[in-house]
């Protein structure tokens, strides 16, 4: 499903990502690990199509990465940092709106939105506005926004950020269920618990010399 072949990123004289290779098939999770500054987020940006690699190639689902292509947008869901949140929508409104734009059937969209909120424990916070959420709840809300849609590949940068151990377990359960139904996960993380629970393959990035 995902083939990363000797992908490296250089900006001017600075190496942001030393060349790396990795792969993950349908229903597998690729965990990207490494210390700060080793290029985890840069690799994810290359996979998401917003950063061009200086060397090497990336293929997702047998085709090249094309961020503006409709098919690519539908196949790949990405969260690197928090997604933009509408200040005037409640949590429930927002997740339902995102789902509605992805499905022709509004009932299916509403059902998916409600099930994602329930899975992440956000159903009781559905009537809150984004500015009324704690930092951990905001992180879960961000995850809900990228999960309330169809995707074949899910790219996440440190989904455990701001979460307590109990909520990290919830996230592991939610991501594990997506992997088990055939989604390919690419997750950069500093959480050993999350990595051990999900990893089919681990890509360890080393500090750039």
């Amino acid at each position, binding site marked *: 499903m995902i083939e990363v072949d000797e992908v490296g990123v250089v900006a001017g004289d600075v190496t942001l990502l030393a060349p790396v290779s990795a792969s993950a098939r349908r229903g597998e999770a690729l965990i990207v690990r490494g210390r700060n500054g080793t290029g985890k987020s840069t690799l994810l940006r290359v996979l*998401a199509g*917003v950063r061009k690699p200086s060397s090497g190639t990336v293929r997702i689902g047998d085709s090249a990465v094309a*961020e503006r292509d*409709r098919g690519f*947008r*539908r196949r790949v869901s*990405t*969260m*690197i940092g928090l*997604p*933009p949140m*509408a*200040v*005037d*929508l*409640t949590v429930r*409104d*927002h997740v*339902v*709106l*995102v789902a*509605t*734009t*992805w*499905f022709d059937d*509004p009932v299916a*969209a*509403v059902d998916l939105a409600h099930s994602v909120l329930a899975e992440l424990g956000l159903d009781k916070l559905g*009537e*809150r*506005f984004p*500015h009324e959420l704690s930092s951990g709840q905001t992180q879960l809300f961000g995850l809900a*926004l*990228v999960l309330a*849609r169809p995707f074949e590949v899910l790219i996440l940068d440190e989904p455990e950020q701001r979460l307590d151990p109990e909520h990290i377990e919830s996230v592991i359960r939610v991501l594990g269920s997506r992997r088990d139904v055939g989604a390919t996960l690419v997750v950069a993380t500093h959480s050993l618990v999350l990595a051990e629970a999900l990893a089919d393959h681990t890509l360890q990035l080393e500090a750039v010399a």
Partner: protein
Amino acid sequence: MSSRSHAAMSIWRARNIRTTGDHAFTIYTVLMLAIVAIIPVGRAVWLSAASPTGLSMLADAAAPSSASLIVAAVWAGALLLGRDRGPAVLPPFVTHAFATSDRPRFDTFRAPLLRSGMIVVTGCTIAAGLIGTSLASNGLAGLEAVATFTAVGVLVGVITTVAWLVGQVFPRAAVVGALGILALGAVTVAVPAVQTYTPWGWVDLAYPTSGSSPSLLALAALAIALFGLIPVLMNRLGFAQLATQAARWDSATTHAAGMDFSSAATIYQPKPHSGRRIRAVRPRAGLTWTFLVRDAIGAIRTPGRLLVGILALSSAGVLLALAFAPTTPGWLLGAAAGVIAFAGLGPLTDGIRHAASVAAGFPLYGISDERLLAQHALFPLAATLVVLLAVVMLCTILIGTASGTAAVSSLALALFALVTRISNALKGSLPLTLLIPISTPAGDPMAAVRVIWGLDAIVLAALGGAAAALAFESPVLLLGVSAILTSIGIKRWRDRR
């Protein structure tokens, strides 16, 4: 300020050691600002006040009651302003240090209050003095009346400062107080017998053309009584509220210093707290309708902000209609209408700003960025057109000018204001190239260029308003402004990531 507070402030101020050169540069900047901006603006204001038109306005029979209404509005505004940015605000670190110390707030936060108060009192005194002097220089008022009214200006400034502080200390009661003052202000104008019993009525009675010393004494007694309440009020300032105001002001001034005025304004944008149980997203009726309803309900969730936006759009409509009256400066009224319409669109365009953020990031919605922006543009466009057309048609009927041409112009104004809003949402941060100094015989123009870049939306909105008002007199201007706005919008859209 106690010796402990003074010592703490000295340490804070000493963190940036300023050389003699720094001080000299500050003096140079202030002098240049005075020569280039303050003196010409002051001269223009004085010439306007002393002109036949200005004098006829100041000497008009309705001028005293207008002055009292303005004073009531200023006090109501001060109460409301205090809720978001009071007069007792220090940098966040100093606020934390002082607010968590055992020193009373009157001791630790007195200096910023005095600074803010001085600015307000000076402004009010200058305004009152200008009115009095303008009237006296043309023999329309005596020197004693001018002195009395200038003293009224000082007292109005003191009361404004206390109202500002009251707004900071009692943010919830401030709304009720402001509405009460505005309502009583209107009653005072409508029922002259009430003037004797209201502070703004005392301003009316002390106006240079109707000068009355007893009203000055009453106003002085009120100002002294309120001044005496300052220590009690200040000691009621809460830590959380002080810290929040300090952080917001610090953040807003940082953005403004970087010419990012949109972000600075966003910091003071009210957040929604009501209407959470109204379902904003009703997906069964198609995406276009879903987004239209979603944006409308989103706007209703900050009702005060929405009301201000609609009032601003209505004011823009009035100005545009007046621009078609035979003897008015059409381009000037049109430009003012453009700026006010741009400001009024702010509360209606949260969706557009969200779409711009989404378009700059990873795909979030299952529709293209272009369609997302178009869907979010529908509600503000519909609302603006309805308000502008209704107000413009009504005003043109009342004034007796042609409704058709004004209606077409209001359509152009709505479109220009919306395109400027979209363009502003896509603007991004200050280009680094504008930070590079350029040496010319007249000095470095880049500071002025940065200011123009920061305020370009206001300039474009004014241009759009003027072009809309002169649509039939100068279609070339209309086409030119359309081309400029479109090309800037397209460029920013392409550069959004």
